[in-house]
C-alpha cells in the first residue's frame, strides 16, 4: 500500500513508538472496562486498532506543531503526550481532567501538548488544523497543522472546502484520514464515490498518498515526508491511512451486527502492535507491556482519587479582563 519502502524508524525509535502504541491500547482497554462498568458516563469512541496512525504521525511532530483530532481522540492525545491520569480524570468527569471535566471524551483540548481540540462533529478537526496552518503561514513560525479525521469526514464540506483553501494558499497542513472502513455502522465504500479517498487530493492539486495505517513505520515515513513538505513551504498533503477499529463505533454497539467476522479476523492478524513486534525482542515487548499496564493502572488510581468539580455559579463562557 505505502509508496514508502525505506524504514523511517531506527530500532530505538521503533521501541519508543511501540511503547506509545501499547500505552494507547492499554489505556483504551481500561477505558472500555470503566465504561461497561458505568464508571464513565455518556459515550466513548475507542481507538484500539488504529494506534499506528496517531503514533506514526505524532512522533514526527515538533512541540510547536498543532494537532486537531476527533471524538475518537484518546489515541492522538496520548501520542501527543497528554498525561494518562488527566485523560482518565476527564473521562471520569473529575476536577483534575485535562479540561476540568467540562469537555468529556469527545471535546478535549490539551494545548500544552499541541492538541488544539478534539471535535465532536465529523470533519471539524479539518478546519481547525487548516486555521493553525494559516496562522503558521502568516506568522512565519515554521509550525505545521495536522488534522486527524475519519473516512466519514471525507464526505463533509469541511474536507472539500478546507483542502481547496489549503491548496490555493499553500498552507503547511497535513490531512491524516484514518480510514477505519466504517462511518459509524456503514461501510465507507458504500457511501464514498470514487473509491479511494487519497485520490481526492489530486482534485485539489495536492498529493494524496495511501498508507498502510497499521504499519507504524510506514505511517511515520509518510508523515515525515508530508511534514517536511509543509515546513518547506510546498503546501499540504493528504494521507489516507488504511486501518480498522477493533471495537464498535461508540458506547455499546456490537460491530458484529454490521461487520463480517472474517473481516475482523484478517485485520486482527495485522494488528499494529503485532506488526511492530516482528522487529522487536519478544522479551522486551512483554516487559514493556507489563510496565505500561502498571503505568496505566497507576494513572487510573490517581484519576479515581481526584475530586469531582464543584459547580461554580460565577463560571463564565467568555474570557474577560482580570
Amino acid at each position, binding site marked *: 500500500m505505502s509508496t514508502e519502502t525505506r524504514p523511517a524508524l531506527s530500532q530505538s525509535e521503533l521501541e519508543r513508538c511501540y511503547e506509545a502504541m501499547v500505552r494507547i491500547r492499554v489505556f483504551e482497554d481500561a477505558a472500555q472496562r470503566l465504561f461497561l462498568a458505568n464508571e464513565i458516563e455518556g459515550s466513548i469512541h475507542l481507538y484500539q486498532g488504529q494506534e499506528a496512525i496517531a503514533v506514526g504521525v505524532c512522533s514526527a511532530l515538533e512541540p510547536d506543531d498543532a494537532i486537531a483530532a476527533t471524538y475518537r481522540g484518546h489515541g492522538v492525545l496520548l501520542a501527543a503526550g497528554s498525561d494518562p491520569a488527566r485523560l482518565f480524570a476527564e473521562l471520569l468527569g473529575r476536577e483534575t481532567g485535562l479540561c476540568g471535566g*467540562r469537555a468529556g471524551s469527545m471535546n478535549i483540548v490539551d494545548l500544552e501538548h499541541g492538541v488544539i*481540540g478534539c471535535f465532536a462533529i465529523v470533519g471539524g478537526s479539518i*478546519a481547525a488544523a*487548516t*486555521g493553525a496552518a494559516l496562522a503558521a503561514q502568516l506568522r512565519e513560525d515554521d509550525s505545521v497543522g495536522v488534522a486527524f479525521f475519519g473516512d466519514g469526514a471525507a464526505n463533509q464540506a*469541511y474536507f472539500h*472546502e478546507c483542502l481547496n483553501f489549503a491548496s*490555493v494558499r499553500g498552507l503547511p497542513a497535513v490531512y491524516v484520514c484514518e480510514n477505519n472502513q466504517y462511518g459509524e455502522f456503514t461501510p465507507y465504500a458504500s457511501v464514498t464515490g470514487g473509491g479511494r479517498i487519497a485520490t481526492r487530493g489530486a482534485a485539489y492539486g495536492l498529493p494524496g498518498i495511501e498508507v498502510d495505517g497499521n504499519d507504524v513505520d510506514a505511517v511515520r515515513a509518510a508523515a515525515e515526508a508530508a511534514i517536511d513538505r509543509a515546513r518547506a513551504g510546498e503546501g499540504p498533503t493528504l494521507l489516507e491511512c488504511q486501518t480498522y477499529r477493533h471495537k464498535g463505533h461508540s458506547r455499546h454497539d456490537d460491530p458484529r451486527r454490521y461487520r463480517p467476522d472474517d473481516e475482523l479476523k484478517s485485520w486482527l492478524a495485522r494488528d499494529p502492535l503485532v506488526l511492530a513486534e516482528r522487529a522487536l525482542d519478544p522479551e522486551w515487548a512483554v516487559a514493556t507491556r507489563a510496565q505500561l499496564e502498571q503505568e496505566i493502572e497507576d494513572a487510573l488510581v490517581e484519576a479515581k482519587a481526584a475530586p469531582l468539580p464543584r459547580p461554580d455559579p460565577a*463560571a463564565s463562557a467568555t474570557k474577560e*479582563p482580570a
Partner: protein
Amino acid sequence: MTQVSYRLAVRDALAEEMERDPDVVLLGEDVRIGGVFNATPELLERFGPNRVIDTPISELAFAGAAFGAAVRGLRPVVEIMFADFLGLVLDTVANQASKYWYLSNGQASVPYTIRTTVGAGGRFGAIHSQTPTGWFMNLPGMKIVAPSNAADAKSLMKSAIRDDNPVLVLEHKLLYGTTGEVAAGNGSVEPIGRAAVVRPGRQVTIAAALAMVRTALAAAAELAAGGIEAEVIDLRSLRPLDIDAIAESAGRTGALVAVEEGPPTGGYASEVISAVAERDRSVRVARVTMPDLPIPFSGVLEDAVVPQPPNVVAAVRKLIGERGE
C-alpha cells in the same frame, strides 16, 4: 471629530486595529478590492496580501480556519458578505468557537470577529435581507454588536477586534451611506455591553438596534408632537444586552417597547422584554417586530413587513392608553 460615513467608519476601524496589532488579519470574499459593500477599500494597499486575504467562496473553510488561527494566536476578522450566509458557518461558530473558552477550561479563547451585512429594505429578497440575530442569541460564549451610526460602526468594531472572544458584528446595509461624527485616533476602547440613551424622555422607553434606532427616533419625534415624551435606547450590544440600562429607563418611564427588524420569536426584542419583566413587573411591555414570515421581494410587500415609525407610534399609544394616561 469629522463627518464620516458608516461604511468608511468600518474601514477606518479595521485599518486602525491592523495598524495597532500585527496579528489582526482580514479574510473574506473580494475584500482586497473592498468587498461587495465597499467597506474595506485600500486596506490591501496598506497592509498587503498576507493581511487582507481574498478567499474562495467557501465560508465554512475560511470561518473555520479563522477559528483555528485564533486559537493559535491571530485575531482574524472574517467578512461574511451577507448575514444570510451565516448558516454555512454555524458549526464552526456555534460548536467550535463559542464554546472553546469554557470547554477548554480556560486554556485559550477565540479572539476573532465575524463582520457581516444585515437588513431588509434593499429589495434583495428573503435570503439576502435577514438580520438573523436569533440564530446566535442563545450561544453561550458569543457576543453580538449592532451599530446604528457611524461612530458606533467604528467604536464597536474596534471593541470587537480587541475583545478576547468571538464577536459577531452586524452592519446594516441601509446604514452604510449614512454619515456622522466619528472620533479619530487609536486610543482605548470601551468594553462590549453598553447601551446608550439617544433621546431622553419620561413616559415610555423604546429600545432598538441598527436601522430600527432611526425608526424609533422618527416615532419619538412624532409622539413628541402629540405630547408623549419617549426615551429611545440604542442597544448597541445585543449579547450581552445592557439590561441594567434598559431596566433603569423602563423603571422610570413605566413602559417599554422593543423594536426589532426580525421575526417575533427568539430575537433580542423578546429577550429585552422578558429580562426587564423579570426585574420589574410594573413595567408595561410590547414588541414591534416583523411578522412571522420570510422577507418578501416586492417593494410594497417588503416595506409592509419591516417595522415603520407608525407601527412604533401605534404600539406606544396603545401601551400608554392601557395605562390610562
